[in-house]
């Protein structure tokens, strides 16, 4: 990066194809209209005049997953809704990203003990950015979007660190949970999510 910044100081602008490609993608992320609960109100506020997500390129919230490349899961994901969330994610074309907005989408939130609450959408989907809060302020959503943009800017086109959609061996879609007699089956996608590690203070 250093020689480019040197050159930029002298007024010469150079870039690589990778940077150009990532710049185009990160500045035109189109979210899928996916508000589930109260975090959706903050997402709507972020898209309105005062906080204006449009200046980041994310102004058109698409109703169809076929036209979107960012899914902002905003709100509590109930177990009844979980298969539909995963199916909609699968129906989005690559490259696609997921932002888990709010405590409920991250881990179940304040309703974690509920009989119908999925304890975090990262059990079934690969989440790129987590935005904590209950609900997070629109500025927090914009900060999360900017973090995602930084992440996209750093994605290489080739090599071992390349994203899933460029990797022919990576999964093309994620399995939808099905409705079991007492809970969803499977409980989580074991390739994506493992229970958190043991803490010693439990047995102190």
């Amino acid at each position, binding site marked *: 990066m250093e020689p480019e910044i040197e050159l930029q100081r002298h007024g010469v602008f150079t870039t690589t194809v990778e940077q150009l490609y990532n710049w185009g993608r990160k500045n035109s992320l189109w979210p899928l209209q996916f508000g589930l609960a109260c975090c959706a109100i903050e997402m709507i506020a972020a898209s309105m005049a005062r906080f204006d997500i449009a200046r980041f390129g994310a102004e058109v919230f698409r109703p169809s997953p076929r036209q979107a490349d960012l899914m902002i899961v905003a709100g509590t994901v109930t177990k009844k809704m979980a298969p539909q969330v995963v*199916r909609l994610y699968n129906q989005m074309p690559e490259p696609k990203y997921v932002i888990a907005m709010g405590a409920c989408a991250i881990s179940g939130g304040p309703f974690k003990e509920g009989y119908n609450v999925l304890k975090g959408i990262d059990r079934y989907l690969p989440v790129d950015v987590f935005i904590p809060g209950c609900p997070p302020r629109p500025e927090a959503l914009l900060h999360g979007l900017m973090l995602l943009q930084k992440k996209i800017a750093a994605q290489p086109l080739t090599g071992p660190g390349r994203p899933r959609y460029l990797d022919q061996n990576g999964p093309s879609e994620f399995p939808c949970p099905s409705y079991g007699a007492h809970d969803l089956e499977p409980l989580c996608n074991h390739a994506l999510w493992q229970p958190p590690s043991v803490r010693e203070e439990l047995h102190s």
Partner: protein
Amino acid sequence: MHSDSWSFLALFALAAVGFALAPLIIAWVWARAYSPRKPGAIKNATYECGLASEGTGWIQFQSDIYLYGIVFLVFDVETIFLMPVAAAFQGLSFGACAAMSVFMLLLVEGLVWLWLKGALGSRTKYCYGTGN
């Protein structure tokens, strides 16, 4: 001089075709390298707001939806025909006025027929599907 102008024409024609084809070729090359095909069963399924869809999305639409398109087309064409008549209205002969009036009367008769048939009315029950 003839050969000069023809060669210019050939050159510009080539440039035009190249201008159209070059982005397509670049996109095709990029897609070959950096857009691997990764289909999936759920990915290619019909979109139904997240529900598991059964069958394709090709349903039998209510046939009188097309009437709106046809009505618009007919009256749009009539408007186009009326424009030169309106522009030359002062200097028209009697025969021309008579012909134009007959033309308009025929179209008004079509409008009356549509009105009586109810194609212009408000729809109280409007649902897609097979009948209803």
